[in-house]
């Protein structure tokens, strides 16, 4: 059974990731948070999350922490995604499908410019 297909391989992956991380250390911490309450999941939040993870993989985007939160009381705006860059204020986006998630990753997380169309006024 391939439960742990190869810990050796994982250790090599770790070394490489560490090396890349050191190069990028200056960029500051980035956090992407996807709301995963029952409302969020029903509205497609897992696809949003999957899209964020795929983007990190394909763009080799290091230093982004992806986490989840529960229902934040705006169920009609789900899927909701939040971006926190360094000590800047948290930006909350609504109706973030897989496609919008890619735009946010590109323009905001990588480019530093919030995507005005989807920002929720909170």
């Amino acid at each position, binding site marked *: *059974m391939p439960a742990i297909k190869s810990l050796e391989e994982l250790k090599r992956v*770790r070394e490489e990731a560490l090396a*890349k991380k050191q190069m990028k250390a200056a960029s500051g911490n980035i956090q992407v948070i996807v709301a995963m309450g029952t409302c969020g999941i029903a509205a497609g939040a897992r696809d949003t999350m999957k899209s964020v*993870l795929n983007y990190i993989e394909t*763009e080799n985007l290091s230093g*982004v922490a992806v986490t989840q939160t529960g229902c934040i009381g705006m169920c009609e705006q789900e899927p909701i995604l939040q971006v926190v860059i360094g000590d800047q204020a948290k930006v909350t986006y609504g109706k973030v499908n897989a496609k919008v998630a890619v735009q946010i990753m590109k323009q905001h997380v990588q480019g530093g410019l919030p995507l005005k169309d989807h920002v929720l006024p909170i």
Partner: protein
Amino acid sequence: MREIALHLMDIAENSVAAESRNIHMDVLEDLQADLLKVSVVDDGRGMSEETAKRVLDPFYTTRTTRKVGLGIPLLKLAAEQSQGGLTLESESGKGTRVEAMFQHSHIDRMPLGDVGTTFLTLLVSYPHIHWIFMYQLKDKQGVLNEFVLDDEEIKSALGDVSLTEPDVLRFLRGMIEEGITALTPQTEF
């Protein structure tokens, strides 16, 4: 909700909210017995007997049970619509176990959906939780194949490297996809 895998994710969110340290998520497709069984077992704060009864019924969901809300009744309904059911056992301070059963071949059974993505997203978003995922497939002859992912070894091998580093994500996704694909024949349609 369109997939059982999404329900699993939703139930696991309750376990996370209940401050669990260890969460087991099991999926069993038993073609011999024509059953599909999924469960989430946690060691979170649990519920009193009274609360545990209430969360099964959407009409009793008051503010005190709001962290659970509609999730469990929705899964219960989905299970009952395909000759199955849902059981919930909980003990205050010990943890909670939610199990849903479905008749595998039932025409109204919700598709199982993308179990791998559910595993992966939970694993990387809650790194402080010890996850054990299991996916078992028993064929009509009774031969059991399984994929088990216990994240303990992975986390100790990674040390301080985040699970959402691109190389690590690629590794984890590959491992989960390969593990689940190896259980074929695929039974979804």
